[in-house]
């Protein structure tokens, strides 16, 4: 995984166990970037339109073994890299990704896959400009997830690993193992550690401070928004919410 000097865009990613608050912070960050006029492209783990139905099929029927679990997630990631992330970075956009290769490195290592094999498998990935790791005490993360959650899915709770027959207990152990793997990755890949127990506003301020120096020279959309034309021309935007085919004006 190398940083490609020819890519004009920026790649910002967040990592962390379920319940670490990483998605909330990434969402706030990308809204801020958009408000500053940057062109932001969001990419989410497990979202390739071509691959995700196979992953869903595998999970639903419990067909996935450690190796096929790893391979199908790599396929999903590869499709997003080539069809979404790389083109956006080539164009100069800010790509924000919720989970990246480190999720695979941590989860697949817990499932017994060789670290060297995994790093080579994902060698086509682009090195992120900044990678944030949301560090949270396990009990806190588990509490956030289990509050108001009636049941866990099979792979989400790591039930395929035979850690414990009780889904909640299995989830707890599984998340602990993943967190231990993440700890190793922080040093190896220079992930930026975020204190996920801190006040949400402070966390977001810190993220923005760290991101800001990387922004000069990145593509911005300066065409002005819809709000500008409404304000300047005294329009209400009455039909902007309308979906589908245009309707005739009532007499």
């Amino acid at each position, binding site marked *: 995984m190398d940083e490609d000097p020819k890519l004009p865009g920026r790649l910002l990613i967040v990592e962390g166990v379920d319940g670490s608050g990483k998605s909330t912070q990434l969402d706030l960050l990308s809204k801020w970037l958009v408000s500053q006029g940057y062109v932001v492209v969001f990419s989410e783990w497990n979202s*390739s339109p*071509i*691959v995700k*139905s*196979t992953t869903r*099929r*595998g999970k639903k*029927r419990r*067909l*996935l*073994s*450690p*190796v*096929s679990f790893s*391979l*199908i997630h*790599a*396929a999903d990631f*590869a*499709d997003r*890299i*080539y*069809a979404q992330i790389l083109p956006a970075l080539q164009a100069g956009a800010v790509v924000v990704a919720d989970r990246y290769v480190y999720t695979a490195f941590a989860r697949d290592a817990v*499932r*017994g*896959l*060789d670290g060297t*094999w995994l790093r*080579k*498998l994902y*060698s*086509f990935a682009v090195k992120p400009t900044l990678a944030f790791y949301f560090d949270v005490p396990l009990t806190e993360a588990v509490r956030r997830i289990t509050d108001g959650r009636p049941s866990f899915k099979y792979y989400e709770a790591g039930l395929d690993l035979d850690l414990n027959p009780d889904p909640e207990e299995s989830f707890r152990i599984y998340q602990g193992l993943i967190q231990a793997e993440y700890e190793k990755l922080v040093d190896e890949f220079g992930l930026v550690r975020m204190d996920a127990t801190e006040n949400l506003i402070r966390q977001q301020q810190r993220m923005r401070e760290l991101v800001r120096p990387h922004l000069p020279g990145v593509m911005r959309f300066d065409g002005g928004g819809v709000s500008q034309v409404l304000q300047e021309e005294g329009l209400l935007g009455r039909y902007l919410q309308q979906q589908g085919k245009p309707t005739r004006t009532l007499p």
Partner: protein
Amino acid sequence: MTELRFMGIRPPGVEDVAVPGRLVVVESTDGVGRSTQVRLLKEWLEDQGYAVLDTGLRRSDLAGPGIERAKEGHTLDPITLNLFYATDFWDRLERQILPALRAGMVVIADRYVFSLIARAVVRGVELDWLENLYAFAVVPDCVIYLDVDVQNLLSRILRSSGFDYWESGQDYLRGQDLYHNFVRYQEMLLAEFRQLAGRYGFQVVDARGSIADTFRSMRQIIQGVVRTMGSDEGAVPIAQPSVAQASERLGREKPAEGS
């Protein structure tokens, strides 16, 4: 019993040191009559009393349908496509091939990782990355490579299905000229197969002759591979329930009765 070896790394969850079955791989470019030969071999082996499982690319429960759908769109880059194929391959290895080998069957694979590697290398994927990707593949007891030249292939293709989109390399070669793309693509592919033949010790069979000649050459090679199976310690005769169970689990046809 034959030692169970892997091309790179032993995958997590597979403990077997040796298995009573045999894995025979048949490789070639498309249009050589490979699938016909596999069907003939299966019949012949069953007549000899061997329980047979035949398997081919894209036949996994997990990823087979997804790959078919993806190929319709012609949109996948070679890395994604190979990861998809590797998922399909592993699912079949784990849930069809390994159980059959443990049960003492002869597994005939109609194409294996070598076809996938050859096609990807031609499309510019690094061999090193591909060998890592397929590190969990079981080393076959023999790989039969059906060798042809492009002229021979052309006459076969034109007599049957005609030029295929993928087999003409239309997904990555420039231009609309199907004939020239086919020739160029197949020449590159055949050269890559011959490279792999040396690297992995394929048994090369000249497949330019009649179906009967090719069949007899293949049969002779396979005879050498399966000959010792009956005398193996722990070999499972086909009438025993374990094979029937294995077949059922595999969702394939039951072993030939009374043979």
